[in-house]
Protein backbone atom coordinates (compact mmCIF):
# COMPACT_ATOMS: atom_id res chain seq x y z
CA UNK A 1 0.00 0.00 0.00
CA UNK A 2 1.37 3.36 -0.90
CA UNK A 3 1.00 6.67 0.80
CA UNK A 4 -2.03 8.88 0.66
CA UNK A 5 -1.47 12.56 1.09
CA UNK A 6 -2.71 13.52 4.49
CA UNK A 7 -3.00 17.20 5.29
CA UNK A 8 -0.18 18.22 7.60
CA UNK A 9 -2.29 19.79 10.31
CA UNK A 10 -4.05 16.52 11.04
CA UNK A 11 -0.87 14.51 11.32
CA UNK A 12 0.86 16.95 13.61
CA UNK A 13 -2.04 17.12 16.01
CA UNK A 14 -0.83 17.11 19.56
CA UNK A 15 -1.71 14.28 21.93
CA UNK A 16 -5.06 14.90 23.56
CA UNK A 17 -3.89 13.87 26.98
CA UNK A 18 -2.60 16.83 28.85
CA UNK A 19 -1.69 16.57 32.47
CA UNK A 20 -4.65 17.97 34.31
CA UNK A 21 -3.44 20.45 36.90
CA UNK A 22 -4.57 19.60 40.37
CA UNK A 23 -6.35 22.49 41.95
CA UNK A 24 -4.65 23.47 45.15
CA UNK A 25 -7.02 24.76 47.74
CA UNK A 26 -5.80 26.69 50.72
CA UNK A 27 -7.67 25.53 53.75
CA UNK A 28 -9.22 28.29 55.82
CA UNK A 29 -8.15 28.82 59.45
CA UNK A 30 -10.28 26.26 61.21
CA UNK A 31 -9.58 23.44 58.74
CA UNK A 32 -6.23 22.35 60.21
CA UNK A 33 -7.91 22.03 63.60
CA UNK A 34 -10.64 19.86 62.10
CA UNK A 35 -8.01 17.74 60.41
CA UNK A 36 -6.21 17.32 63.71
CA UNK A 37 -9.45 16.45 65.49
CA UNK A 38 -10.39 13.81 62.95
CA UNK A 39 -6.87 12.38 63.08
CA UNK A 40 -7.15 12.18 66.86
CA UNK A 41 -10.53 10.45 66.70
CA UNK A 42 -9.16 7.99 64.13
CA UNK A 43 -6.19 7.21 66.33
CA UNK A 44 -8.41 6.74 69.36
CA UNK A 45 -11.11 4.66 67.74
CA UNK A 46 -9.13 2.66 65.21
CA UNK A 47 -5.43 2.89 65.97
CA UNK A 48 -5.70 2.28 69.69
CA UNK A 49 -7.83 -0.90 69.52
CA UNK A 50 -5.42 -2.26 66.92
CA UNK A 51 -2.52 -1.68 69.27
CA UNK A 52 -4.45 -3.28 72.12
CA UNK A 53 -5.05 -6.41 70.05
CA UNK A 54 -1.35 -7.00 69.54
CA UNK A 55 -0.46 -5.87 73.06
CA UNK A 56 -2.90 -8.33 74.65
CA UNK A 57 -1.83 -11.10 72.30
CA UNK A 58 1.79 -10.63 73.34
CA UNK A 59 0.99 -9.81 77.00
CA UNK A 60 2.69 -12.95 78.26
CA UNK A 61 5.49 -12.93 75.73
CA UNK A 62 6.01 -14.57 72.39
CA UNK A 63 5.92 -18.30 73.37
CA UNK A 64 2.29 -18.34 74.67
CA UNK A 65 1.27 -16.32 71.62
CA UNK A 66 2.80 -18.88 69.24
CA UNK A 67 1.42 -21.74 71.29
CA UNK A 68 -2.08 -20.30 71.01
CA UNK A 69 -1.71 -20.20 67.25
CA UNK A 70 -0.36 -23.76 67.09
CA UNK A 71 -3.26 -25.16 69.05
CA UNK A 72 -5.25 -27.69 66.93
CA UNK A 73 -8.53 -25.78 67.25
CA UNK A 74 -6.85 -22.60 66.13
CA UNK A 75 -5.29 -24.30 63.13
CA UNK A 76 -8.64 -25.87 62.27
CA UNK A 77 -10.29 -22.46 62.50
CA UNK A 78 -7.71 -20.91 60.18
CA UNK A 79 -8.10 -23.77 57.70
CA UNK A 80 -11.88 -23.51 57.80
CA UNK A 81 -11.79 -19.74 57.31
CA UNK A 82 -9.50 -20.14 54.31
CA UNK A 83 -11.68 -22.92 52.89
CA UNK A 84 -14.88 -20.90 53.21
CA UNK A 85 -13.28 -17.84 51.63
CA UNK A 86 -11.72 -19.97 48.90
CA UNK A 87 -15.19 -21.17 47.90
CA UNK A 88 -17.25 -18.04 48.55
CA UNK A 89 -14.94 -15.41 47.04
CA UNK A 90 -14.45 -17.00 43.58
CA UNK A 91 -18.18 -17.74 43.37
CA UNK A 92 -19.01 -14.15 44.22
CA UNK A 93 -16.38 -12.91 41.78
CA UNK A 94 -17.98 -14.92 38.99
CA UNK A 95 -21.41 -13.82 40.08
CA UNK A 96 -20.34 -10.19 40.40
CA UNK A 97 -18.79 -10.09 36.94
CA UNK A 98 -21.84 -11.78 35.38
CA UNK A 99 -24.28 -9.46 37.10
CA UNK A 100 -22.27 -6.37 36.29
CA UNK A 101 -21.93 -7.50 32.68
CA UNK A 102 -25.65 -8.11 32.34
CA UNK A 103 -26.61 -4.86 34.03
CA UNK A 104 -24.15 -2.60 32.27
CA UNK A 105 -24.14 -4.00 28.74
CA UNK A 106 -27.77 -4.96 28.18
CA UNK A 107 -31.21 -3.52 28.59
CA UNK A 108 -33.80 -5.80 30.11
CA UNK A 109 -36.86 -5.82 32.28
CA UNK A 110 -36.33 -6.12 35.98
CA UNK A 111 -32.90 -4.50 35.88
CA UNK A 112 -33.67 -2.27 38.85
CA UNK A 113 -35.05 -5.23 40.77
CA UNK A 114 -31.78 -7.07 40.18
CA UNK A 115 -29.82 -4.05 41.36
CA UNK A 116 -31.90 -3.86 44.52
CA UNK A 117 -31.41 -7.58 45.14
CA UNK A 118 -27.65 -7.20 44.81
CA UNK A 119 -27.69 -4.47 47.42
CA UNK A 120 -29.96 -6.37 49.78
CA UNK A 121 -27.17 -7.97 51.89
CA UNK A 122 -25.87 -4.46 52.65
CA UNK A 123 -29.18 -3.44 54.14
CA UNK A 124 -30.14 -6.52 56.15
CA UNK A 125 -28.48 -7.60 59.35
CA UNK A 126 -25.89 -10.36 58.91
CA UNK A 127 -27.72 -12.32 61.60
CA UNK A 128 -30.76 -12.44 59.32
CA UNK A 129 -28.51 -13.52 56.43
CA UNK A 130 -27.48 -16.47 58.58
CA UNK A 131 -30.90 -17.17 59.97
CA UNK A 132 -32.53 -17.61 56.54
CA UNK A 133 -30.33 -20.65 55.92
CA UNK A 134 -31.35 -22.14 59.25
CA UNK A 135 -34.98 -21.49 58.36
CA UNK A 136 -34.49 -23.16 55.00
CA UNK A 137 -32.13 -26.02 55.78
CA UNK A 138 -32.27 -26.42 59.58
CA UNK A 139 -33.85 -29.47 61.17
CA UNK A 140 -37.12 -27.57 61.64
CA UNK A 141 -36.63 -25.73 58.33
CA UNK A 142 -38.43 -25.89 55.04
CA UNK A 143 -36.22 -28.60 53.57
CA UNK A 144 -35.21 -30.00 56.98
CA UNK A 145 -36.88 -33.38 56.78
CA UNK A 146 -35.73 -33.95 53.21
CA UNK A 147 -32.11 -33.21 54.15
CA UNK A 148 -32.26 -35.42 57.24
CA UNK A 149 -33.75 -38.27 55.20
CA UNK A 150 -30.94 -38.04 52.68
CA UNK A 151 -28.28 -37.45 55.31
CA UNK A 152 -27.19 -34.11 53.86
CA UNK A 153 -25.75 -31.61 56.31
CA UNK A 154 -25.93 -27.95 55.44
CA UNK A 155 -26.56 -25.99 58.59
CA UNK A 156 -23.96 -26.48 61.37
CA UNK A 157 -21.56 -27.70 58.65
CA UNK A 158 -19.27 -26.24 56.02
CA UNK A 159 -21.97 -25.78 53.30
CA UNK A 160 -23.97 -23.57 55.66
CA UNK A 161 -20.93 -21.45 56.44
CA UNK A 162 -20.22 -21.05 52.75
CA UNK A 163 -23.83 -20.13 51.96
CA UNK A 164 -23.98 -17.55 54.74
CA UNK A 165 -20.67 -16.03 53.66
CA UNK A 166 -21.73 -15.88 50.02
CA UNK A 167 -24.93 -14.09 50.95
CA UNK A 168 -23.19 -11.51 53.10
CA UNK A 169 -20.38 -10.79 50.63
CA UNK A 170 -22.69 -10.91 47.60
CA UNK A 171 -22.58 -7.19 46.63
CA UNK A 172 -18.88 -6.43 46.92
CA UNK A 173 -17.62 -7.38 43.47
CA UNK A 174 -20.75 -6.39 41.55
CA UNK A 175 -20.95 -3.00 43.26
CA UNK A 176 -17.37 -2.26 42.36
CA UNK A 177 -17.79 -3.21 38.70
CA UNK A 178 -21.20 -1.86 37.72
CA UNK A 179 -20.39 1.89 37.70
CA UNK A 180 -17.12 1.30 35.87
CA UNK A 181 -18.66 -0.94 33.23
CA UNK A 182 -21.59 1.40 32.77
CA UNK A 183 -19.21 4.27 32.17
CA UNK A 184 -17.19 2.21 29.69
CA UNK A 185 -20.28 1.34 27.67
CA UNK A 186 -20.55 -1.53 25.25
CA UNK A 187 -18.86 0.04 22.24
CA UNK A 188 -15.56 -1.76 22.63
CA UNK A 189 -17.36 -5.08 22.83
CA UNK A 190 -19.39 -4.19 19.75
CA UNK A 191 -16.18 -3.28 17.94
CA UNK A 192 -14.62 -6.61 18.90
CA UNK A 193 -17.67 -8.45 17.55
CA UNK A 194 -17.55 -6.64 14.21
CA UNK A 195 -13.87 -7.53 13.98
CA UNK A 196 -14.78 -11.19 14.14
CA UNK A 197 -14.28 -12.03 17.81
CA UNK A 198 -16.65 -14.47 19.46
CA UNK A 199 -18.48 -13.77 22.70
CA UNK A 200 -15.94 -15.47 24.95
CA UNK A 201 -12.93 -14.01 23.16
CA UNK A 202 -14.50 -10.58 23.46
CA UNK A 203 -14.99 -11.07 27.16
CA UNK A 204 -11.51 -12.40 27.73
CA UNK A 205 -9.60 -9.93 25.57
CA UNK A 206 -11.68 -6.77 25.82
CA UNK A 207 -14.02 -6.75 28.81
CA UNK A 208 -11.83 -8.44 31.38
CA UNK A 209 -8.69 -6.34 30.82
CA UNK A 210 -10.80 -3.21 31.09
CA UNK A 211 -12.14 -4.15 34.50
CA UNK A 212 -9.22 -6.11 35.93
CA UNK A 213 -8.18 -3.63 38.60
CA UNK A 214 -11.69 -2.88 39.75
CA UNK A 215 -12.31 -6.62 39.86
CA UNK A 216 -9.22 -7.20 41.95
CA UNK A 217 -10.30 -4.41 44.26
CA UNK A 218 -13.76 -5.90 44.64
CA UNK A 219 -12.33 -9.36 45.28
CA UNK A 220 -10.04 -7.90 47.93
CA UNK A 221 -12.90 -6.28 49.82
CA UNK A 222 -15.05 -9.37 49.35
CA UNK A 223 -12.29 -11.57 50.74
CA UNK A 224 -11.69 -9.34 53.76
CA UNK A 225 -15.37 -9.47 54.60
CA UNK A 226 -15.63 -13.21 53.91
CA UNK A 227 -12.80 -14.00 56.32
CA UNK A 228 -13.94 -11.56 58.96
CA UNK A 229 -17.68 -12.27 58.85
CA UNK A 230 -19.10 -13.02 62.27
CA UNK A 231 -22.87 -12.55 62.52
CA UNK A 232 -24.23 -14.65 59.71
CA UNK A 233 -21.62 -17.36 60.20
CA UNK A 234 -22.27 -17.46 63.92
CA UNK A 235 -25.92 -18.38 63.35
CA UNK A 236 -25.23 -21.30 61.00
CA UNK A 237 -22.03 -22.53 62.59
CA UNK A 238 -23.20 -24.31 65.71
CA UNK A 239 -19.82 -23.45 67.29
CA UNK A 240 -18.38 -26.95 67.15
CA UNK A 241 -14.76 -26.50 68.15
CA UNK A 242 -12.26 -27.65 65.58
CA UNK A 243 -15.08 -28.36 63.13
CA UNK A 244 -17.33 -25.41 62.38
CA UNK A 245 -15.57 -22.55 64.10
CA UNK A 246 -14.11 -20.00 61.74
CA UNK A 247 -11.46 -17.62 62.98
CA UNK A 248 -13.83 -14.88 64.20
CA UNK A 249 -15.93 -17.50 66.02
CA UNK A 250 -12.80 -19.03 67.47
CA UNK A 251 -11.91 -15.63 68.93
CA UNK A 252 -15.30 -15.41 70.62
CA UNK A 253 -15.11 -18.91 72.03
CA UNK A 254 -11.64 -18.36 73.50
CA UNK A 255 -12.62 -15.00 74.91
CA UNK A 256 -15.66 -16.52 76.62
CA UNK A 257 -13.27 -19.11 78.09
CA UNK A 258 -11.22 -16.25 79.62
CA UNK A 259 -8.30 -17.32 77.40
CA UNK A 260 -7.25 -13.76 76.73
CA UNK A 261 -3.93 -14.54 75.08
CA UNK A 262 -5.48 -17.17 72.81
CA UNK A 263 -8.38 -14.90 71.83
CA UNK A 264 -6.13 -11.96 71.05
CA UNK A 265 -3.61 -14.14 69.25
CA UNK A 266 -6.36 -15.32 66.91
CA UNK A 267 -7.66 -11.76 66.69
CA UNK A 268 -4.19 -10.55 65.73
CA UNK A 269 -4.34 -12.86 62.71
CA UNK A 270 -7.58 -11.16 61.63
CA UNK A 271 -6.09 -7.75 62.32
CA UNK A 272 -3.06 -8.72 60.26
CA UNK A 273 -5.35 -9.73 57.42
CA UNK A 274 -7.06 -6.36 57.73
CA UNK A 275 -3.76 -4.51 57.54
CA UNK A 276 -2.64 -6.49 54.50
CA UNK A 277 -5.95 -5.78 52.80
CA UNK A 278 -5.59 -2.10 53.60
CA UNK A 279 -2.10 -1.94 52.14
CA UNK A 280 -3.12 -3.77 48.95
CA UNK A 281 -6.18 -1.57 48.67
CA UNK A 282 -4.10 1.58 49.01
CA UNK A 283 -1.62 0.37 46.43
CA UNK A 284 -4.46 -0.39 44.01
CA UNK A 285 -6.10 2.96 44.63
CA UNK A 286 -2.83 4.74 44.15
CA UNK A 287 -1.85 3.01 40.93
CA UNK A 288 -5.23 2.70 39.24
CA UNK A 289 -7.06 5.68 40.63
CA UNK A 290 -8.80 6.51 37.36
CA UNK A 291 -10.47 3.18 36.88
CA UNK A 292 -11.43 2.74 40.50
CA UNK A 293 -12.68 6.26 41.12
CA UNK A 294 -15.85 5.53 39.18
CA UNK A 295 -16.83 2.85 41.58
CA UNK A 296 -16.49 5.09 44.57
CA UNK A 297 -18.61 7.89 43.30
CA UNK A 298 -21.73 5.74 43.33
Amino acid at each position, binding site marked *: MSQLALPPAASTAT*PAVAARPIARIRLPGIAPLMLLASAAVMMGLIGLPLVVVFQEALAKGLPPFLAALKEPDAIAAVKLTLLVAAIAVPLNAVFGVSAAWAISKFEFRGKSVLLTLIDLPFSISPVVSGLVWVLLFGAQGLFGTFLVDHDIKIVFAVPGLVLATILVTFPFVARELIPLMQAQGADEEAAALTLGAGGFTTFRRVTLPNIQWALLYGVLLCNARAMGEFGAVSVVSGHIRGLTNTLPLHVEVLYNDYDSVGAFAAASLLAGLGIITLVLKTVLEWRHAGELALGHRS
Partner: protein
Amino acid sequence: MSLQARDKEFLALLGPSGSGKTTLLRVLAGLEKPDAGEVRFGGEDFLSLPVRRRRVGMVFQHYALFRHMTVEQNIAFGLTVRSRREKPSRADIRARVADLLSLVQLEGLDKRFPAQLSGGQRQRVALARALAIEPRMLLLDEPFGALDAQVRRELRRWLRELHDRAGVTTVFVTHDQEEALDLADRVAILKDGELIQLGAPNEVYEHPATPFVFDFLGQACRLPGVIEAGRLRIADWESAAPKDAPGGPVEVFFRPDEVDFAPVDGAGLAAEVTGVAQRGPDVRIDCRIEGHAMELIGHGPTLPIGVAPGLSVRIKPFRPQVYAAR
Protein backbone atom coordinates in the same frame (compact mmCIF):
# COMPACT_ATOMS: atom_id res chain seq x y z
CA MET B 1 -38.04 1.92 4.06
CA SER B 2 -35.87 0.34 1.42
CA LEU B 3 -32.37 1.40 0.61
CA GLN B 4 -29.72 -0.06 -1.61
CA ALA B 5 -26.06 0.78 -1.66
CA ARG B 6 -24.24 0.13 -4.88
CA ASP B 7 -20.97 -1.72 -5.11
CA LYS B 8 -17.94 0.39 -4.12
CA GLU B 9 -20.22 3.30 -3.47
CA PHE B 10 -19.75 6.01 -0.87
CA LEU B 11 -23.21 6.40 0.58
CA ALA B 12 -24.14 8.96 3.21
CA LEU B 13 -27.00 8.54 5.62
CA LEU B 14 -28.00 12.07 6.51
CA GLY B 15 -30.61 13.11 9.01
CA PRO B 16 -31.27 15.01 12.18
CA SER B 17 -30.62 13.25 15.48
CA GLY B 18 -33.26 10.67 16.22
CA SER B 19 -33.89 9.98 12.55
CA GLY B 20 -32.70 6.39 12.88
CA LYS B 21 -29.53 6.65 10.86
CA THR B 22 -27.23 5.18 13.50
CA THR B 23 -29.77 2.43 14.19
CA LEU B 24 -29.76 1.60 10.49
CA LEU B 25 -25.98 1.41 10.54
CA ARG B 26 -26.03 -0.88 13.56
CA VAL B 27 -28.55 -3.09 11.84
CA LEU B 28 -26.18 -3.34 8.86
CA ALA B 29 -23.35 -4.27 11.21
CA GLY B 30 -25.55 -6.78 12.99
CA LEU B 31 -25.33 -5.06 16.37
CA GLU B 32 -29.07 -4.53 16.40
CA LYS B 33 -31.90 -6.64 15.09
CA PRO B 34 -34.67 -5.00 13.09
CA ASP B 35 -38.27 -5.78 14.15
CA ALA B 36 -39.09 -6.54 10.55
CA GLY B 37 -37.51 -6.37 7.12
CA GLU B 38 -34.42 -7.85 5.60
CA VAL B 39 -30.81 -7.02 5.00
CA ARG B 40 -29.09 -8.51 2.00
CA PHE B 41 -25.54 -8.31 0.84
CA GLY B 42 -24.94 -9.33 -2.74
CA GLY B 43 -27.98 -11.60 -2.50
CA GLU B 44 -26.80 -13.15 0.78
CA ASP B 45 -29.18 -12.97 3.72
CA PHE B 46 -27.27 -10.78 6.13
CA LEU B 47 -29.72 -11.01 9.01
CA SER B 48 -29.06 -14.71 9.53
CA LEU B 49 -25.33 -14.02 9.78
CA PRO B 50 -24.01 -13.18 13.25
CA VAL B 51 -22.00 -9.97 13.58
CA ARG B 52 -18.65 -11.72 13.58
CA ARG B 53 -19.28 -13.52 10.32
CA ARG B 54 -20.41 -10.45 8.37
CA ARG B 55 -16.93 -9.06 7.88
CA VAL B 56 -18.15 -5.52 8.15
CA GLY B 57 -15.67 -2.91 9.24
CA MET B 58 -17.20 -0.42 11.60
CA VAL B 59 -15.79 2.83 12.90
CA PHE B 60 -17.69 3.97 15.94
CA GLN B 61 -18.55 7.54 16.76
CA HIS B 62 -16.14 7.61 19.67
CA TYR B 63 -13.88 5.08 17.94
CA ALA B 64 -14.23 2.42 20.65
CA LEU B 65 -10.53 1.67 20.54
CA PHE B 66 -9.42 -1.00 22.99
CA ARG B 67 -7.97 1.23 25.66
CA HIS B 68 -5.67 -1.35 27.19
CA MET B 69 -4.05 -2.28 23.87
CA THR B 70 -1.41 -0.43 21.89
CA VAL B 71 -2.18 0.97 18.46
CA GLU B 72 -0.50 -2.06 16.95
CA GLN B 73 -2.54 -4.51 19.02
CA ASN B 74 -5.71 -2.60 18.21
CA ILE B 75 -5.15 -2.85 14.49
CA ALA B 76 -4.10 -6.51 14.68
CA PHE B 77 -7.08 -7.49 16.84
CA GLY B 78 -9.32 -8.59 13.96
CA LEU B 79 -6.55 -10.87 12.69
CA THR B 80 -5.45 -12.34 16.00
CA VAL B 81 -8.95 -13.42 17.04
CA ARG B 82 -9.38 -15.62 13.99
CA SER B 83 -9.53 -19.33 14.42
CA ARG B 84 -6.23 -21.14 14.24
CA ARG B 85 -6.82 -22.25 10.68
CA GLU B 86 -7.57 -18.79 9.29
CA LYS B 87 -5.11 -16.89 11.42
CA PRO B 88 -2.23 -15.33 9.51
CA SER B 89 1.26 -15.96 10.80
CA ARG B 90 2.84 -13.56 13.26
CA ALA B 91 5.05 -12.08 10.54
CA ASP B 92 2.09 -11.62 8.20
CA ILE B 93 0.12 -9.85 10.89
CA ARG B 94 3.05 -7.56 11.62
CA ALA B 95 3.45 -6.77 7.92
CA ARG B 96 -0.26 -6.06 7.55
CA VAL B 97 -0.26 -3.77 10.56
CA ALA B 98 2.75 -1.91 9.18
CA ASP B 99 0.97 -1.49 5.83
CA LEU B 100 -2.12 -0.13 7.49
CA LEU B 101 -0.13 2.18 9.73
CA SER B 102 1.51 3.72 6.69
CA LEU B 103 -1.85 3.91 4.93
CA VAL B 104 -3.30 5.98 7.75
CA GLN B 105 0.04 7.74 8.26
CA LEU B 106 0.63 6.76 11.83
CA GLU B 107 4.04 5.15 11.45
CA GLY B 108 6.00 5.26 14.64
CA LEU B 109 2.94 5.45 16.86
CA ASP B 110 2.41 1.67 16.95
CA LYS B 111 3.43 1.34 20.61
CA ARG B 112 1.24 4.18 21.87
CA PHE B 113 -1.97 3.63 23.75
CA PRO B 114 -5.23 5.24 22.56
CA ALA B 115 -5.18 7.69 25.47
CA GLN B 116 -1.88 9.05 24.15
CA LEU B 117 -3.32 9.96 20.75
CA SER B 118 -5.19 13.00 19.48
CA GLY B 119 -8.76 12.71 18.24
CA GLY B 120 -7.75 12.63 14.59
CA GLN B 121 -5.11 9.99 15.25
CA ARG B 122 -7.58 7.83 17.14
CA GLN B 123 -10.00 8.04 14.29
CA ARG B 124 -7.35 6.85 11.88
CA VAL B 125 -6.43 3.96 14.17
CA ALA B 126 -10.10 2.98 14.27
CA LEU B 127 -10.17 3.10 10.49
CA ALA B 128 -7.04 1.00 10.16
CA ARG B 129 -8.46 -1.51 12.62
CA ALA B 130 -11.64 -1.80 10.58
CA LEU B 131 -9.70 -2.14 7.32
CA ALA B 132 -7.45 -4.85 8.74
CA ILE B 133 -10.12 -7.51 8.34
CA GLU B 134 -10.50 -6.62 4.64
CA PRO B 135 -14.15 -5.76 5.18
CA ARG B 136 -16.77 -6.27 2.54
CA MET B 137 -18.40 -3.06 3.66
CA LEU B 138 -17.18 -0.14 5.74
CA LEU B 139 -19.56 1.53 8.15
CA LEU B 140 -18.68 4.89 9.65
CA ASP B 141 -20.79 6.34 12.45
CA GLU B 142 -20.38 10.13 12.52
CA PRO B 143 -16.74 9.71 11.53
CA PHE B 144 -15.90 13.37 12.10
CA GLY B 145 -18.33 14.08 14.90
CA ALA B 146 -15.78 14.20 17.68
CA LEU B 147 -13.17 16.26 15.83
CA ASP B 148 -12.70 19.99 15.67
CA ALA B 149 -13.70 21.82 12.53
CA GLN B 150 -10.30 22.13 10.91
CA VAL B 151 -9.19 18.54 11.40
CA ARG B 152 -12.63 17.50 10.21
CA ARG B 153 -12.33 19.27 6.88
CA GLU B 154 -8.89 17.85 6.21
CA LEU B 155 -9.73 14.30 7.16
CA ARG B 156 -12.79 14.43 4.94
CA ARG B 157 -10.83 14.69 1.72
CA TRP B 158 -8.36 12.14 2.91
CA LEU B 159 -11.13 9.67 3.76
CA ARG B 160 -12.63 10.10 0.32
CA GLU B 161 -9.27 9.33 -1.27
CA LEU B 162 -8.84 6.36 1.00
CA HIS B 163 -12.24 5.04 -0.03
CA ASP B 164 -11.46 5.41 -3.71
CA ARG B 165 -8.21 3.55 -3.22
CA ALA B 166 -9.48 0.76 -0.99
CA GLY B 167 -12.53 0.25 -3.21
CA VAL B 168 -14.83 -0.79 -0.39
CA THR B 169 -18.51 0.01 -0.30
CA THR B 170 -18.77 2.59 2.43
CA VAL B 171 -21.82 3.75 4.32
CA PHE B 172 -21.43 6.66 6.66
CA VAL B 173 -23.76 8.40 9.01
CA THR B 174 -23.75 12.12 9.58
CA HIS B 175 -25.99 14.95 10.65
CA ASP B 176 -23.82 17.51 8.87
CA GLN B 177 -25.32 18.22 5.44
CA GLU B 178 -22.19 19.92 4.19
CA GLU B 179 -20.14 16.83 5.00
CA ALA B 180 -22.61 14.51 3.28
CA LEU B 181 -22.84 16.64 0.14
CA ASP B 182 -19.10 17.07 -0.05
CA LEU B 183 -18.09 13.48 0.49
CA ALA B 184 -20.69 11.05 -0.75
CA ASP B 185 -21.53 9.55 -4.12
CA ARG B 186 -25.13 9.46 -3.04
CA VAL B 187 -26.94 10.86 -0.07
CA ALA B 188 -29.88 9.21 1.67
CA ILE B 189 -31.89 11.63 3.75
CA LEU B 190 -33.69 10.11 6.69
CA LYS B 191 -36.32 11.46 9.01
CA ASP B 192 -38.10 9.64 11.81
CA GLY B 193 -36.87 6.30 10.51
CA GLU B 194 -38.08 6.92 7.00
CA LEU B 195 -36.14 7.45 3.81
CA ILE B 196 -37.20 10.84 2.46
CA GLN B 197 -34.91 11.16 -0.53
CA LEU B 198 -32.00 9.36 -2.12
CA GLY B 199 -29.79 10.79 -4.81
CA ALA B 200 -26.53 12.34 -5.88
CA PRO B 201 -25.48 15.29 -3.71
CA ASN B 202 -26.24 17.85 -6.41
CA GLU B 203 -29.53 16.22 -7.28
CA VAL B 204 -30.85 16.37 -3.71
CA TYR B 205 -29.54 19.88 -3.21
CA GLU B 206 -31.07 21.27 -6.38
CA HIS B 207 -34.31 19.33 -6.20
CA PRO B 208 -35.19 18.62 -2.60
CA ALA B 209 -38.19 16.31 -2.55
CA THR B 210 -39.88 17.85 0.47
CA PRO B 211 -39.76 21.10 2.47
CA PHE B 212 -37.95 19.12 5.17
CA VAL B 213 -35.13 18.18 2.83
CA PHE B 214 -34.91 21.74 1.53
CA ASP B 215 -34.69 23.09 5.04
CA PHE B 216 -32.23 20.45 6.18
CA LEU B 217 -29.75 20.87 3.32
CA GLY B 218 -29.18 24.56 3.83
CA GLN B 219 -30.66 27.85 4.84
CA ALA B 220 -34.19 28.36 3.61
CA CYS B 221 -36.58 31.25 3.09
CA ARG B 222 -40.22 30.38 2.82
CA LEU B 223 -43.24 32.31 1.65
CA PRO B 224 -46.84 31.34 0.94
CA GLY B 225 -47.95 31.54 -2.67
CA VAL B 226 -50.59 30.38 -5.12
CA ILE B 227 -50.28 28.61 -8.45
CA GLU B 228 -53.00 29.26 -11.00
CA ALA B 229 -52.92 28.48 -14.71
CA GLY B 230 -49.18 27.89 -14.80
CA ARG B 231 -48.40 31.14 -13.01
CA LEU B 232 -46.88 31.37 -9.56
CA ARG B 233 -48.13 34.32 -7.54
CA ILE B 234 -46.38 35.43 -4.38
CA ALA B 235 -47.99 38.53 -2.88
CA ASP B 236 -48.11 41.09 -5.70
CA TRP B 237 -45.51 39.39 -7.87
CA GLU B 238 -46.27 36.88 -10.59
CA SER B 239 -43.92 34.64 -12.53
CA ALA B 240 -43.97 31.44 -14.53
CA ALA B 241 -44.52 28.46 -12.24
CA PRO B 242 -41.70 25.89 -12.09
CA LYS B 243 -42.26 22.67 -14.02
CA ASP B 244 -44.25 19.91 -12.31
CA ALA B 245 -45.43 22.34 -9.65
CA PRO B 246 -48.70 21.48 -7.93
CA GLY B 247 -51.69 23.79 -8.41
CA GLY B 248 -53.44 25.77 -5.72
CA PRO B 249 -51.95 27.17 -2.53
CA VAL B 250 -48.25 26.40 -2.21
CA GLU B 251 -45.24 27.03 -0.07
CA VAL B 252 -42.38 28.64 -1.91
CA PHE B 253 -38.85 27.89 -0.73
CA PHE B 254 -35.67 29.54 -1.89
CA ARG B 255 -32.09 29.86 -0.69
CA PRO B 256 -31.27 33.23 0.84
CA ASP B 257 -28.39 33.73 -1.58
CA GLU B 258 -30.30 32.76 -4.72
CA VAL B 259 -32.07 36.06 -5.26
CA ASP B 260 -31.72 38.96 -7.68
CA PHE B 261 -32.17 42.48 -6.40
CA ALA B 262 -33.99 45.16 -8.38
CA PRO B 263 -34.95 48.76 -7.72
CA VAL B 264 -38.28 49.36 -6.05
CA ASP B 265 -39.96 50.31 -9.34
CA GLY B 266 -38.81 47.09 -11.04
CA ALA B 267 -40.39 43.63 -11.00
CA GLY B 268 -40.23 41.26 -8.03
CA LEU B 269 -41.26 40.92 -4.42
CA ALA B 270 -41.45 44.12 -2.46
CA ALA B 271 -38.94 43.93 0.39
CA GLU B 272 -38.31 46.46 3.10
CA VAL B 273 -34.68 46.45 4.16
CA THR B 274 -34.29 46.64 7.94
CA GLY B 275 -30.60 46.00 8.33
CA VAL B 276 -27.42 45.38 6.40
CA ALA B 277 -24.31 43.73 7.75
CA GLN B 278 -21.04 43.05 5.99
CA ARG B 279 -19.90 39.55 6.87
CA GLY B 280 -16.56 38.86 5.29
CA PRO B 281 -17.13 37.90 1.67
CA ASP B 282 -20.91 38.15 2.01
CA VAL B 283 -23.47 40.77 2.85
CA ARG B 284 -26.30 39.85 5.16
CA ILE B 285 -29.48 41.70 4.43
CA ASP B 286 -32.32 41.64 6.93
CA CYS B 287 -35.63 42.52 5.38
CA ARG B 288 -39.37 42.12 5.67
CA ILE B 289 -41.31 40.59 2.83
CA GLU B 290 -45.08 40.44 3.16
CA GLY B 291 -44.70 40.82 6.91
CA HIS B 292 -42.24 37.89 7.14
CA ALA B 293 -38.83 38.70 8.57
CA MET B 294 -36.15 37.27 6.30
CA GLU B 295 -32.42 37.12 6.07
CA LEU B 296 -30.95 37.31 2.57
CA ILE B 297 -27.36 36.93 1.51
CA GLY B 298 -25.67 38.91 -1.20
CA HIS B 299 -22.30 37.69 -2.45
CA GLY B 300 -19.43 39.97 -3.23
CA PRO B 301 -18.02 42.98 -1.47
CA THR B 302 -20.45 45.53 -2.86
CA LEU B 303 -24.07 45.99 -1.88
CA PRO B 304 -26.72 45.33 -4.50
CA ILE B 305 -28.00 48.58 -5.97
CA GLY B 306 -30.42 50.45 -3.77
CA VAL B 307 -29.98 48.29 -0.71
CA ALA B 308 -29.70 50.26 2.49
CA PRO B 309 -31.55 50.13 5.78
CA GLY B 310 -34.95 51.82 5.60
CA LEU B 311 -35.21 51.53 1.81
CA SER B 312 -37.44 49.25 -0.20
CA VAL B 313 -36.23 47.01 -2.98
CA ARG B 314 -37.64 44.26 -5.06
CA ILE B 315 -36.20 40.80 -5.02
CA LYS B 316 -36.60 37.86 -7.37
CA PRO B 317 -35.73 34.37 -6.20
CA PHE B 318 -34.24 32.86 -9.34
CA ARG B 319 -34.63 29.22 -8.40
CA PRO B 320 -37.67 28.80 -6.15
CA GLN B 321 -38.89 25.36 -5.10
CA VAL B 322 -42.60 24.94 -4.76
CA TYR B 323 -44.40 22.47 -2.50
CA ALA B 324 -48.13 22.00 -2.02
CA ALA B 325 -49.20 23.85 1.12
CA ARG B 326 -50.05 21.55 4.00
